């Protein structure tokens, strides 16, 4: 049985991604915000979780108003990102765990 060891939340406004891309994380406006991540990074480094479930809202990239589920679960091997039209530079794709994702989806359906 898996054990949930914690939950981490963050503001997710696109300006955060831009600030990282533009190297502004230590800028006067952003410093306090980004410094807040440091203890989280340290904690993750210490705990080394096996899996991380990322929960986020879709910024109008995957879903339009004609088909917009309240919840959707990604079950892919890799997750690509893209410029959603406002100039964010895509970062490298990150790795998924299809087996776990399907396990999660099936377990939730069975409930």
């Amino acid at each position, binding site marked *: 049985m898996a054990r949930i060891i914690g939950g981490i939340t963050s503001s997710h406004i*696109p300006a955060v991604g831009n600030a990282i891309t533009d190297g502004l994380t230590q800028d*006067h*406006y952003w410093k306090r915000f980004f410094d807040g991540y440091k203890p989280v990074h340290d904690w993750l480094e210490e705990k080394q979780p096996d899996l991380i479930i990322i929960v986020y809202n879709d*910024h*109008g990239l995957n879903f*339009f*108003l004609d088909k917009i589920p309240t919840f959707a679960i990604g079950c892919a091997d890799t997750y690509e990102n893209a410029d959603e*039209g*406002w*100039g964010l530079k895509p970062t490298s794709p990150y790795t998924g765990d299809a087996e776990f994702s399907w396990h999660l989806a099936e377990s939730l359906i069975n409930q």
Partner: protein
Amino acid sequence: MVWRKHDYDEISGTYVFDGQRAHSSYALNKLFYSFNEEVNRTAFEESPEVYCENFDLSKEHKALVLNQDFLGILRAGANIYYMAKYCIPRGVSVQDAGAAFQGITGDEFRDKLLKKRDGLEERLEKEGGYWNG
């Protein structure tokens, strides 16, 4: 049937994106959603008017897009996530929209946010390490 009233209908200075707005602005949002694809962004840049013809926009909504009337577009029921794909490349950010809601410029809004942090450590201490803004 008429549109149901909600307690958020009359919030001063903002417009809640709900079913009624999603319905009346469907074509407008669909146009903005199309900007996910670079090929569509380029086609729009080349000829905004011709590009708008691909979408079933009302005359009023088309005029708002062609005139870059950002606040008018929000009032018309644009969803901020779709709309940002149109505004940000034109130099208007979501933060500027927040500023416009308060009747101040984007720079004034940034300054206001920065000022808000003054004395944060003291406030945090007073509230036991927690501050909800």
